[in-house]
């Protein structure tokens, strides 16, 4: 499987192929912890301003501006502050954080320490999805190395700043990737999202000011401090700063993790050249989900010859979203009714059950897809699916409801023939 940078020097992927890159020794040999040293001489405001200037946006999927999120923390509050890394990576098609956690754990430690220093946090957590247990073991060893080297714990590098970092395990629930459900899970509760406001920056873990950031967001922080926010931003574009990791899977010859500068031109070249082109020469490109299963599915005719730029604005203009960068490529052998059914089952399994529209709606959607796949589809089913989606979208506590609706809405709109085929043929002979 490929792990490489295209169109830029590897930053996030700098240590992916270096032997023992996960160790403190190699991390330091390759320039690691210089950013932390520098950050400890800066003011909290200056650090937050560098992150703002970088135009870094949350890499988990929501894309919220990171510097702005950090600035919402009331640092004067007497309550404890927390930085929580969201390592719950569960968005279908997404596997980039896994390799960062496996091969460069110190990059995350350094990023979290800088964030903790900037926000006044003395205890912080890395929440892992439960299935990533082997990655927790790797991180625990890295944390021990950092403690032994005075990079973690009391009086870090001889300064007044003390901070502890702990790993924490989830137990198999996609919804715990939603930041407030994650916090409930960290508190030992069922993983239900919370009503917002209040937002975690004001009332998060243990009702204290908390910043939750994705792995890839936090590993960008040392890069930003080292080269400066503007310079990091300018690796990408003005509104989409820096570089992004894309997890490519499906019908390409070279699936893997690719680091691209934001604004990479363009999506067609990325698929047909950089990722090795289509898996089977005689099976043409049919569909792409560019940002994890929750984003709108794209038809090949929205990609080929359309110059879709790979950044936040470019994908919105192109008809989808960056999301998590979980880039799923499908050729003409895929039936889009079946692929959409597959994802609808995912959302039904993963619905936390709190909100009636999502809990009942996703279940009903699966039942309808089951009936269609059994050959009993009716022409009015397309509208029925859309009506149910409409009753879920925007009508729940969290984005899982929207995420369940968007694949269906975009699939019916952009692949009408795939659905027509199931809704007008009737194997019952009626």
């Amino acid at each position: 499987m490929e792990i490489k940078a295209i169109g830029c020097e590897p930053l996030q992927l700098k240590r992916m192929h270096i032997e023992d890159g996960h160790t403190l020794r190699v991390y330091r040999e390759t320039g690691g912890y210089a950013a932390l040293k520098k950050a400890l001489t800066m003011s909290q405001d200056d650090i937050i301003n560098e992150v703002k200037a970088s135009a870094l946006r949350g890499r988990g999927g929501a894309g919220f501006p990171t510097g702005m999120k950090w600035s919402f923390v009331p640092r004067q509050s007497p309550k404890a502050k927390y930085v929580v890394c969201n390592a719950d990576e569960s968005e279908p098609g997404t596997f980039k954080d896994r390799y960062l956690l496996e091969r460069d754990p110190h990059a995350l430690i350094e990023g979290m320490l800088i964030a903790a220093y900037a926000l006044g946090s003395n205890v912080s957590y890395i929440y892992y999805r439960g299935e990533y247990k082997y990655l927790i073991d790797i991180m625990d060893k890295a944390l021990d190395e950092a403690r032994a080297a005075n990079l973690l714990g009391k009086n870090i590098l001889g300064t007044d700043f003390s901070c502890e970092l702990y790993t924490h395990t989830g137990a198999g629930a996609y919804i715990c990737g939603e930041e407030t459900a994650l916090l409930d899970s960290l508190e030992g509760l069922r993983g239900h999202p919370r009503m917002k406001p209040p937002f975690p920056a004001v009332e998060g873990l243990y009702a204290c000011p908390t910043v939750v950031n994705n792995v890839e967001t936090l590993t960008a922080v040392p890069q930003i401090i080292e080269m400066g926010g503007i310079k990091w931003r300018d690796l990408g574009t003005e509104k989409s700063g820096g570089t992004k990791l894309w997890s490519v899977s499906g019908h390409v010859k070279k699936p893997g993790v690719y680091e691209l500068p934001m604004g990479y031109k363009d999506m067609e070249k990325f698929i047909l050249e950089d990722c090795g082109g289509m898996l089977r020469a005689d099976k043409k490109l049919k569909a792409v989900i560019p940002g994890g299963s929750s984003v709108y599915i794209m038809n090949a005719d929205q990609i080929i010859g359309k110059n879709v730029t790979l950044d936040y604005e470019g994908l919105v203009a192109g008809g989808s979203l960056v999301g998590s960068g979980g880039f799923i490529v499908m050729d003409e052998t895929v039936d889009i009714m079946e692929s959409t059914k597959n994802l609808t089952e995912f959302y039904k399994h993963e619905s936390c059950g709190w909100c009636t529209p999502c809990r009942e709606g996703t279940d009903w959607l699966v039942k309808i897809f089951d009936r269609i796949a059994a050959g009993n589809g009716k022409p009015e089913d397309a509208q029925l699916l859309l009506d149910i989606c409409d009753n879920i979208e925007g009508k729940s506590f969290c984005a899982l409801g929207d995420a369940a609706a968007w694949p269906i809405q975009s699939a019916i709109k952009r692949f009408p023939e795939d659905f027509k085929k199931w809704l007008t043929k009737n194997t019952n002979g009626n």
Partner: protein
Amino acid sequence: MAATAPTDFTNSVVVTDEVAEFSSAVVEEMKSHLVKYPPERKRSALIPLLFVVQRERGYVDNAGANFLAKFLGLEVTDVWETATFYSMFNFRKIGKHHIQICKTLSCKIVGEPEITNHICKRLGIHPGETTVDGKFTVTMVECLGSCGTAPMMQIGFDYHENLTTEKVDRILDSLK
């Protein structure tokens, strides 16, 4: 053959006052999780400790849940309330080797169905079932973050990727 999922809770737990006992090493292990959280927030250790109970007892059982309630100062209903939410906890005995096959889209479109059929045919069970000799349980699970090396499965906590039917046979042959 009953195809009750390992995580099905109803009908499988008999509630008594029995409290499980653990070795001092295991109790020390549990305490090592507790220190990570504020002392008034012991419930944060519940999910990590449920994994310890599951490892020691084979699954999350009545006696293990009672132990955790005492250890963490919770009601036993708090323990079950949390445990039943998460897919990785089992409430009855399953096979020695838990084969979890990813069924989500990226795996599905590059050959998962062939792998699933091969495993089920070789073991003589359907997804959700356990072999009669108690050696294997097969479960279909959602995306495991291995889409670039699909199709794949997780056995226990171990990832097995880039599967072919030949590779699957070698892996299953090697499991005692």
